């Protein structure tokens, strides 16, 4: 029986990544649980982009305009799924806040696999707010099949759909500057987050609020303040300090000639 199970699982190729993953799982679960029971308070540094999101939505709703969130060209079936999940968390919170508006919030994507889940996220936000009847299926839109054409489409959407808040969160490259430029021309408030370095550089130059590096992935902890998400935030911080320590130790060892080439 044991042999059958072992044969079923197969041979372990490399134990180190699995061990690291195990540590991350344990840290995330334990720290999340401690945060949930109020035993541990996870410190949060100020992130102006997340602080601005609530006021962005408020201004858009008051001015009678729409809130737009784009999850970019990333999919839910490949290596950028993590970015899509982070973008969906932002979409969830933003839509829940924006459902009080007469104008439907809009969500766009450039990946067909992300479309059903975006649509579902919008619907669930309306249901949660007790306004499922207001949900319009066309508020989730597939604009294109690539990032460049997506931002091309977004430049037209800003005036045509009367967008008053623009949140672009996904795997955008430097082309995100086109969408940001259109937003600036119409004087709307924008937040841009990308997991790509070129996208972050373009966003720094062209948007008021930006999410750099890992900031994109902590949206749930900052916007929703969910205890489980706080655990993830703390794990991320611990891992970051671990990487910093490894780099410093590695540098010292390499300088002393104690590290193999």
């Amino acid at each position: 029986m044991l042999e059958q199970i072992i044969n079923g699982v197969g041979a372990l190729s490399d134990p180190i990544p699995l061990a690291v993953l195990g540590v991350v799982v344990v840290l995330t679960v334990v720290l999340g649980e401690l945060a949930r029971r109020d035993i541990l308070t996870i410190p949060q540094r100020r992130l102006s982009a997340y602080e601005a999101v609530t006021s962005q939505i408020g201004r858009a709703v008051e001015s009678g305009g729409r809130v737009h969130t784009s999850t970019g060209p990333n999919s839910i079936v490949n290596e950028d799924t993590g970015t899509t999940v982070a973008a969906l968390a932002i979409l969830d919170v933003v839509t829940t806040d924006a459902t009080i508006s007469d104008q439907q919030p809009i969500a766009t994507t450039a990946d067909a696999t992300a479309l059903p889940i975006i649509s579902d996220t919008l619907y669930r936000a309306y249901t949660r707010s007790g306004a499922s009847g207001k949900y319009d299926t066309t508020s989730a839109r597939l604009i294109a099949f690539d990032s460049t054409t997506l931002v091309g489409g977004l430049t037209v959407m800003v005036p045509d759909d009367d967008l008053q808040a623009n949140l672009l969160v996904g795997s955008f490259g430097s082309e995100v500057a086109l969408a940001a430029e259109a937003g600036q021309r119409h004087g709307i408030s924008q937040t841009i987050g990308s997991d790509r370095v070129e996208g972050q550089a373009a966003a720094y130059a062209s948007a008021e609020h930006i999410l750099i590096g890992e900031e994109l992935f902590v949206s749930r902890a900052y916007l929703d303040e969910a205890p489980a998400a706080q655990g993830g935030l703390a794990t991320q911080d611990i891992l970051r300090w671990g990487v910093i320590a490894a780099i410093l130790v590695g540098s010292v060892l390499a300088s002393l000639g104690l590290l193999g080439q």
Partner: protein
Amino acid sequence: MKRILPTAIAIAVGIIVLMGYFFEGGTITALRVVLTGWAATLAGLAVLLGIINVLLVNARRLDQRAKGSLYNLLTIAAVAVTLVIGLIEGRLLDGTALYRSSSATNLLFNGVIVASQAALASLVMFALVFAAIRILDRTATRWTYLFVGAVVIGLIGWIPLLGVVNTAYEWLVAVPVTGGVRGILIGVALGTIVIGVRVLTGSERPYTE
């Protein structure tokens, strides 16, 4: 039940696929292949759903006589024409129409889609230059000046025979830029791992409440 079942399926599938990368040669690897095959099939079907969405959104705007509805009509017509040509040529040429230079599908792809993407991409440079100019008006902090300074050195550093500027450019790219990029990418990787773990443990559920 409505909440537990999707979460249980997502966690189980996630663990099987992940473990399939760590363990070789067992049933778990075979299961991973089957599950990723299903995902690929579903992704293909999602494209059909996407086309229906494009048609619905544009038809709705056309019906409402929304601003720019002429473009919505053009989009619907373009989808219909491309779909019909693609289906006919796909059947006649055994699905190789896109790769044959003489086909109308190839002409539509290279002459319209690739050309319009190239045109859009060429506008990015202008948008970036405008953004770099505007940034000084918007928020003139020391970080802004540092950013603009780096952009200027980055642009003129390409010009040969400028001595110290070329050296500054090379140092800028080799040391702070490379270091910064690596730092950001490590941050993105850590964020991706943690959010992946949160999905695996069921604390992040984009598919259910």
